């Protein structure tokens, strides 16, 4: 059915838009980008800031263009003294309640409030400071830090947490000037149902929510001559880090990224994608075993640590559906400090594994007590004591933190040469790189599962049904005449739909991929700001381009992974895998006080 079009005028120009279009979007069609602050496409239209106000003829008051529909015959004015004065005044009011510590703020030069003040020409603060006392920072989370003092109550974080993620870890409490974003009983993010997905930090227009930085520790490790520093990079970094260094959206910069990491001083630049291939080997075989032996189905992927915490809180009774595989980050850490340490003749205690992740939840994951398989592996052999206990992954940095490190040492990223990853843990396949996009794990698993089960070569390795940005995608793959029904969900809100299906015992699927963030890891909470639908699309394109560029595109064909099995693990789901590559989960529930 043809969309109904309506006619209106904006600043005297006639424009025709679909019925239901907001005034804000209608303005874009005549080349006017009305300034906004609380509004965020697809996430939040809360109407709190009042910056996007425009004049509508015969309307007594100014109208919020972000929330009001364009109507036929409407006469909109976007530029008048009244509007300019009002926007400026409302921004001045916000600034009067905002610590003007821009120079020392994490978000300096990448702050929407700052840019807007510049854009609207605010040159003085005529109002007295509103904030009577400082609210303590929320340091309770291992992934995120909240500074309520910098919060402008735009509600974006609340909306993304509740609407996109269906987590509801935060909401605005209190009234009037006492309003603030808080967790249940104000106990802090670390004691809440927060999944650490970090989407809030991605949408925050100011520095009120940021990742908990580990930059200093990593720099210190890099400067320590007694330590061997090993870095692993997640698939989504190579399509994100370029943006943060001033390159176009979705720029594919694998080689430059490797060169940059070497310049920073890492002893070995490896790739999480190696572990992604390894994950497919383990997870693929786990799936096969569950199908063959009648295990709990559907099996659900376990790569996304936000998702893991989500299911532990909200669906503790469904933990058996989760694959027991650790995430690639953790598999990498465990292998690096065992297999690789042995191979390279290193004392695992002197290795520091640093991961570069598009994800804030990875910080939490790296700190989980289950994630120290390497220590247990060495414990007897090296006569280690409890106080020597070390984690498999020492530090998980976000894409943004890596960019910050590059900037700090003055690396001219765009002019770096392409360099290759180190061996052996730098070798990966096209199946691994697509882990960075929603549907990628599923596609990689299908490539392997199909060939392992059918012992045939796939006619085409690309599974188009599981690609793209639809919230929930499903596909049926015929394997040996057996239909394998699978589903892919990204965002926790979509995951919840599939989980409710499972709870109702109505799930038709054998295998489900869940990624916490919109678009998968490429849209992760640790990625460069801004990250929006358009940017996610570009990053995904680069991911799939990288896959096509690679000669080997199936995990079970990764030579170094095969070597790892041959020399160390023996076989997928074997004894060593069980200890190093698989994990257990915790029933958390929602309302008890969680100590992290």
């Amino acid at each position, binding site marked *: 059915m043809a969309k109904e079009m309506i006619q209106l005028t904006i600043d005297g120009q006639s424009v025709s838009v679909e019925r239901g279009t907001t005034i804000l979007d209608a303005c874009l069609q005549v080349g006017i980008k009305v300034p906004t602050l609380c509004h965020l496409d697809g996430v939040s239209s809360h109407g*709190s800031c*009042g910056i996007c106000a425009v004049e509508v003829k015969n309307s007594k*008051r100014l109208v919020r263009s972000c929330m009001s529909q364009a109507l036929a015959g409407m006469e909109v004015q976007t530029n008048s003294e009244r509007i300019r004065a009002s926007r400026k005044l409302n921004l001045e*009011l916000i600034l009067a309640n905002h610590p003007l510590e821009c120079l020392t703020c994490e978000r300096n030069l990448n702050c929407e409030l700052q840019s807007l003040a510049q854009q609207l020409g605010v040159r003085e603060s*005529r*109002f007295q400071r509103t904030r009577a006392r400082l609210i303590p920072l929320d340091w309770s989370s291992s992934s995120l830090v909240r500074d309520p003092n910098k919060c402008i*109550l735009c509600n974006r974080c609340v909306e993304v947490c509740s609407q996109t993620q269906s987590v509801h870890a935060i909401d605005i409490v209190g009234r*009037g000037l006492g309003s603030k974003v808080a967790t249940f009983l104000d106990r802090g993010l670390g004691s809440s149902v927060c999944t650490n997905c970090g989407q809030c930090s991605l949408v925050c227009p100011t520095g009120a929510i940021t990742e908990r930085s580990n930059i200093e520790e990593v720099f210190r490790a890099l400067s320590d001559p007694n330590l061997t520093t090993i870095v692993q990079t997640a698939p989504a970094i190579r399509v994100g880090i370029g943006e943060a260094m001033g390159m176009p959206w979705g720029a594919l910069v694998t080689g430059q990224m490797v060169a940059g990491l070497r310049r920073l001083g890492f002893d070995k630049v490896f790739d999480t994608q190696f572990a992604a291939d390894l994950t497919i080997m383990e997870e693929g075989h786990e799936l096969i075993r569950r199908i063959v032996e009648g295990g709990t189905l559907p099996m659900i992927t376990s790569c996304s640590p936000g998702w893991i915490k989500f299911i532990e809180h909200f669906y503790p009774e469904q933990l058996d559906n989760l694959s027991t595989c650790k995430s690639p980050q953790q598999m990498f850490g465990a292998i690096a400090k065992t297999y690789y340490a042995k191979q390279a003749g290193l004392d695992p205690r002197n290795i520091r594994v640093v991961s570069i992740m598009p994800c804030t939840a990875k910080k939490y994951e790296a700190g989980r007590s289950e994630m120290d398989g390497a220590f247990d592996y060495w414990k007897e052999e090296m006569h280690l004591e409890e106080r020597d206990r070390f984690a498999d992954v020492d530090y998980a940095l976000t894409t943004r933190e890596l960019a910050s490190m590059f900037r700090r040492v003055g690396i001219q990223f765009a002019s770096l040469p392409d360099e290759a990853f180190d061996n052996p843990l730098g070798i990966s396949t096209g199946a691994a790189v697509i882990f960075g996009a929603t549907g990628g794990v599923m596609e990689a698993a299908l490539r392997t599962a199909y060939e392992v089960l059918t012992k045939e070569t796939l006619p085409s390795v690309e599974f188009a049904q599981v690609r793209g940005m639809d919230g929930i995608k499903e596909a049926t793959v015929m394997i040996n005449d057996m239909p394998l029904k699978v589903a892919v969900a990204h965002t926790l809100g979509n995951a919840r739909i599939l989980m409710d299906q499972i709870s109702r015992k109505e799930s038709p699927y054998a295998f489900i991929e869940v990624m916490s963030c919109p678009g998968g890891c490429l849209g992760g909470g640790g990625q460069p700001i801004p990250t929006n639908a358009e940017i996610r699309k570009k990053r995904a394109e680069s991911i799939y381009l990288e896959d096509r560029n690679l000669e080997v595109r199936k995990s079970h064909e990764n030579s170094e992974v095969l070597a790892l099995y041959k020399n160390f693990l023996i076989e997928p789901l074997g004894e060593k895998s069980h200890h190093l590559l698989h994990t257990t989960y915790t029933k958390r529930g929602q309302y008890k006080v969680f100590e992290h």
Partner: protein
Amino acid sequence: MKNHIEELRAKGELLLNPGCVDIAVGVGTCGLGNGAGELLKAIKEEVASKQLPIQVRSVGCFGFCANEPLVNIHIPGKPLLILDKVQIEDLPWIFASLENGLFPKDRVLCKISEWDYLGASATFGSGFEEIPEWNAISYFRPQKKIVLRHAGLIDPTSIEEYLAVGGYSAFFKAVWEMDRDEVLQEVKNSKLRGRGGAGFPTGLKWELMNKNEAERKFIICNADEGDPGAYMNRNEMESDPHMLIEGMLIGAYAMHTSEGIVYVRAEYPLAVERLKLAVKQARAIGLLGKQIPNTLFQFDIEIVEGAGAFVCGEETALIASMEGKAGRPTMKPPFPAQKGYLGYPTTINNLETWCNVPAIIAMGSSWFRQSGTVGSPGTKVFSLVGKVKNTGLVELPLGESLSTLIYEVGGGSSSPNKKIKAVQSGGPSGGCIPASKFDTPIDYESLQSLGAIMGSGGMVVMDQDNCMVDVARYFIEFTHKESCGKCVPCREGLAQELALLNGIVQGRGKESDLTKMEELGLNICDTAVCGLGQSAPNPVLTTLRYFKDEYEDHIQRNHCASGTCEELITALCSNSCPMHMDIPAYLQLLKENRLEEAFASTIQDNPLPGTIGRICHFHCQMRCRRDSIDEPVHQGEIHRYLADTMYTIGRESAIYQKLVDTMLLATGNSIAIVGAGPAGLAAAFYLVRLGHQVTVYDSNEKAGGVLRYGIPSYRLPKEVLDKELELFDELGVKFVFNRELGKTLSLKELQRENSAVILAIGAYRHMELDIPGIELEGVLQGTDLLERLEKEQPVAIGKRVVIVGGGNVAIDAARTLWRRGCEVTVAYRRAKEDMPANKSEIDEAIKEGVVFSFMSAPIQVIGDEGHAVQAFEVMEMRAGSYDLSGRRRPQESGNTRRIPCDTVIVAIGEQVDTGLLVREGIATDSHENACIERYSYKTNLEKVYAIGDLVTGPSTAAEAMGYAKDASQVIDFDLTGKRRFSSLFASFSYSNEPPLETPAGRSIAPRHLKITERKGNFAEVNRGYLGEQARLEASRCLRCDIRYTETKEVAHG
């Protein structure tokens, strides 16, 4: 069902007409708060113990909350009597009256002979001729009871009584005799508008709801009344809860819904209790919860208690709150009619709106439109509170004027001598309407045009003791606290508005704050999300619009005229004294027996303490805190006593010398002051001490102006004035007499020869009375008379004198002529309480035997052939409607009367000699006074300043002197560029311990001449205090100036 209801109705009728004496006590929250509960119990006990054939009931509130408890007494066949302020002590005479059937008329508020319940009517009976009908007393006269038609007459806990007064008949009419569209059309035709304040047409709202099809639909009654000082809805629920249920039933029928919700504040426990009971009763007889017979209609009501957030009165916030979310508004559209409670179409009406519906259906829309205006038909219930005599719930037809509400219903100012200044209409986010706009009709559009809103009907009246800056600050503090915090303009904007207001009331305001506040306020109105924010700046915007001078006074002079802003005042008396005399200081110094220091303290603020102590209007007394206990302290009498004592014992010269010694070094500036009246003298006193060379010019041959030539000696002996003028000679003030500006004194020359010229020539021109016969020989001007007598010039005065006017000149002339043996009549066109003269002067004149003829407007002076006055003809006046000053307009009765006399004195007021100003090239303002730049006292002419009455129009001597004091400070700064004024003031140390006890009792009256001793002489009437009296009176001071007490360490051992 029908039969059952008929049975109940019959039962109710028996309750209302028991065939015996019926006593009913008003037990709303207001009544209970005043002891109605105990009263009811006592009445029941009395009736039971004596086994009297009396029925005792409880009813709701009849609306006169100030006079609760109200008790209705009905003797069969007689009118229903309403007794007010009934206490248990009154019961003996009440029962005695019941026995003999005679009720003393002054103990009964009013009677009701007949009552129209709008659906039923009642005839109570006839008799008690001397007792006024309820609608004959001013509180009820303009009222029309539609919503409150049952309140105070029926028992709110009895569905039987509700049925007996025609209750639910409108619903049955709707549901059995009309189809849904007819009901809707009737409501539409009535043009009823939302009584919650916004005034949206109710019928239209209902129609919008009907356009939406949905599986569920809700109607909601908004009874979340959150305005401070407003309690219309509470009373409506407490007094007549079934009316709401009936209204919602009719609405539900018209809107095809079966689910209703009443959202009521949990802070209204009694209302909630009675409403719950009413719902239960309605369910029990099948009105709620069951299908109504012969229809497909069924409806039920759920009561939701809100936790008390002001913003939850906003409909989207109310819905959010009911859904268990935080009470924060959302943007409209979508409107609740599209997507409301739980996402279903929802109609929300204010409680009062629902309550109008049964009356409209019962009586028809055309009947409804007969009340009110074309655009705003019907009535509105107002909660009238604040500084009016009568407070309570008032149901007025829309379109009545504010002055009717405030002056007639409210009875005007709650305290004599205090002027009503403004009314805050529409609650905390309404607007402050100044008294000068009280002729505005009360309807939605008119109030909006003033910057206010109808709101839910709160009317808070404020008088001169309210600071309008503080009023704005109070309301903004409220809305700022109640802001949900969602949107920036409201959350942050109101906080900034409050900060600016706080700065101003604490003396930290800047002139630029005012434009900033206005800009901010308009922006909040323009961009806030919901009604709370959009209207919250109204108090600031309206006070800025109507009371900007008060803001400027706070900012420019650190002065809060009403004495409200604590940081700006020491004591209320000092603050209200135009000269800001340090009253607590001299009272305390006197208490400590340090007379000379006490005198030194007074004279530095007031160079004429003996003079002003005799003739002042004593602004200080009007704001004395002691007044709240018994009577104010006679601060003025005390400084007069100090002055008199100093002059008697001759100790003043040492103090004068000290003033001379502390004069600042000569500045070389010469200043000419034109006019040696109070203003000119006060300016000379300060400016000469600041080191300027001061010359005072006056047209008379002596200094003093009105003090000498206007005030008779029996009030101010001229020796006192002469004595006090010596100080000016000591200080070196030069006087040049017999020089008249424009004639023998050239302003241009003065400008040329002086650094500054200060015009202080007062308002001395008398106002003309334009009536036939005014040209006759025996007609004199009051001011002329007094001046000529003082100058001992010959005046022809007869034996019988009529004086026209009501000001001090009229009274002075009257008392003067009385002393000279005349028969004196004062004719005044208004009532006694409207007279502008000092109340004590009027009382003394009455005591002396001056005859007053009030409500007598002059028509003509009648003369004989020889042009001699024979009589004075007056028109007898009736009190008409209220004017903007709160006084009733005198209206001609048509009856004239002649007062035989041979002399007529005209004393109807004075004014500035505008002609002189024009001739001298001085700009004038709209009042024809000299126009100056406020706070700089500059006229349009270079170096020329103007002060006193010349600028303000006629005022008191103290006001003129205070004006001069402030001007001296400003002019000195102008001339020297330095702030030196404070160096003129010595400080005195004295005890700052609050008195543990003060003498009990009223103020001490100074000795007065007996009336018999006054005739034929001009001896001073008030002889002043004796020493002990003065000290005792000073000890009555509560020392409210002390804010902090020092804690002294107790020495041990």
